[in-house]
């Protein structure tokens, strides 16, 4: 098992510091009588193949790939920093670079969707808990659907409805009385649609967890709060919420990780013109005709670093807890 976890990681890192061999060029002089001699540059197929066979990884380039235009683009960033005066201008030009654009969307998506999911999940859980007992199972069943179904399928189902010819798209056009309102044409709308999809997809997960937490709520605490004259909102705020706090932390953590790797909705919504994420970036590099393995690997390494930074506080806390338990 460890073999399959550790080896690919090493392989990814290795590939990210190697670039494919350039083709070996030779100058061929062809001389024809009467016309004279011409020199042509041609690809020496044999030598190229030999070189590739000898060193399948490619030539060693160190951190070059990380620095090129497709990734961290250090040169361009420096140039933009020097050329722009205000921060907003710098930011808008920075997000034109592909890597930073993807990063920008990934982070926005993560930090908008995560709190929304927690909020919606909590509200729905409170609500369902107040329903008539026999209805609850049915509600849980229906609400699990968007979560269990593959993100690609879920996003497609939603996309066809939001499409300017679909039912929701038409309703939105009708509400704003603007027949030209179309998801495909507007970056802002596309981002909103992706975020709505993200909440729709993940809220059931939060709901189920919170709902299970509500079942373990100690009744005497609620009663005590009622005797003390707490209003309903106060009961929720001071009794229910503290009781669910560990679960809120758990859901937020899982959501942070899941949203950071947002990928399928972008394919489903056909949104790559308006929004790209880091995962989509890798997919795109790998999927093309040329299979740019080293570029994809470099992005992979950067993504893994991003995840690690995101998780670092959690990891530290878990480690501390573990040490204390010992």
């Amino acid at each position, binding site marked *: 098992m460890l073999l399959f976890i550790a080896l690919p990681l090493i392989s990814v890192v290795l590939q990210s510091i190697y670039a494919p061999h350039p083709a070996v060029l030779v100058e061929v002089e062809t001389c024809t009588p009467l016309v004279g001699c011409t020199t042509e540059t041609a690809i020496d197929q044999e030598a190229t193949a030999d070189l590739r066979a000898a060193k399948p990884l490619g030539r060693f380039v160190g951190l070059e790939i990380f620095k090129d235009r497709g990734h961290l683009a250090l040169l361009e960033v420096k140039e933009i920093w020097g050329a722009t005066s205000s921060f907003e201008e710098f930011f808008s030009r920075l997000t034109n670079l592909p890597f930073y654009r993807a990063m920008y969307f990934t982070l926005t998506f993560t930090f908008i969707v995560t709190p929304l999911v927690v909020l919606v999940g909590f509200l729905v859980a409170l609500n*369902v808990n107040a329903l008539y007992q026999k209805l609850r199972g049915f509600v849980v069943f229906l609400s699990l659907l968007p979560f269990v179904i593959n993100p690609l399928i879920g996003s497609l189902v939603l996309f066809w409805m939001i499409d300017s010819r679909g039912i929701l798209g038409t309703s939105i056009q009708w509400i704003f009385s603007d027949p030209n309102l179309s998801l495909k044409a507007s970056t802002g709308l596309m981002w909103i649609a992706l975020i709505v999809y993200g909440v729709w997809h993940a809220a059931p997960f939060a709901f189920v967890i919170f709902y299970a937490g509500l079942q373990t709520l100690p009744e005497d605490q609620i009663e005590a709060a009622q005797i003390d004259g707490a209003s309903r909102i106060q009961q929720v705020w001071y009794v229910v919420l503290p009781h669910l706090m560990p679960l809120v932390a758990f859901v937020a953590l*899982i959501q942070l990780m899941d949203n950071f790797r947002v990928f399928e909705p972008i394919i489903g919504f056909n949104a790559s013109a308006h929004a790209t994420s880091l995962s989509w970036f890798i997919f795109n590099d790998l999927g093309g005709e040329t299979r740019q393995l080293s570029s994809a690997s470099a992005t992979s390494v950067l993504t893994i670093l991003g*995840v690690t930074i995101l998780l670092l506080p959690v990891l530290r806390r878990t480690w501390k807890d573990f040490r204390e338990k010992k």
Partner: protein
Amino acid sequence: MSAATEKRSTKLRVLIYVFAIFWLIISAFPFIWTLWGSFKVELDFFSIADWTFALTGERTTAEYGRAFTAAGYEGAWVKEEFWRNVINTFIICFFVVCTSLTIGTLGGYALSRSGYRYTFILLITALIFRAMPPITLVSGYMLPFFEWNVWGKIPTTVIVLVAINQPFTLWMLHSFFQNIPKELDESAKVDGCSQFQAFRNVIIPVMWPGVITTGLFSFLLAYNDFAVTSMLLSEENRTMMPKVAAFLGTTYTEGNVMFAVAAVVSAAAPLFILVMLFQRQIVSGLTAGAVKG
């Protein structure tokens, strides 16, 4: 909560039910709509002229004489040979579930009985793996697979999926095993069982619910995976998800969106049944992780 329920005013009651219905519409309506629409022609599914066409199937009637047509399904399943992808999907799911459960039960049992030290490492690996997008690992797999000439084959993909899934499976089964008291296998051993017999005859029967839950989650992972399968499988070995994505590329140009709609509905149907049958297990699996973690 009975005391609290009695005191609710009618206004609040109405509010609660309105919100619940609203939530149900949000979560279920898109699926019902797509299912309904998949039996129509494209002009009805995306009705520009009049949205009620999508309900009544005006154009579908004009074209086929009835308000429902299976033309989309026929196109997807027969013309585009979607059934191949369905078979591939189930082969892959079956082997992924079997392999990861075999390794998972044996490994999880061993870990839970061997003391305290592994718990933290296991938890952290499971966590990191949960966090890492699987696609970041794919580029690491690809070059060696090309070199060894095993790219595009089903067994290779099964191994990769199992590997990605394994830390999570181990973690889940491990926490299930820890709930089973040690006295149980000790008493079995006192009665003359060997360690393995104790595991097979005593622990496994008690473990069934846990094994089923974990199996469900590995199934969902294998079934829903898009990134790994689309990158590691060759064209004829594709599973459903990459095929649906491939439909999108070709059908938008050919104007055959209904093929994709039909394929999406077909791919979602097994999950629908799965949730219906195993709702309790899915919920308990989701919450088990939360309570332990």
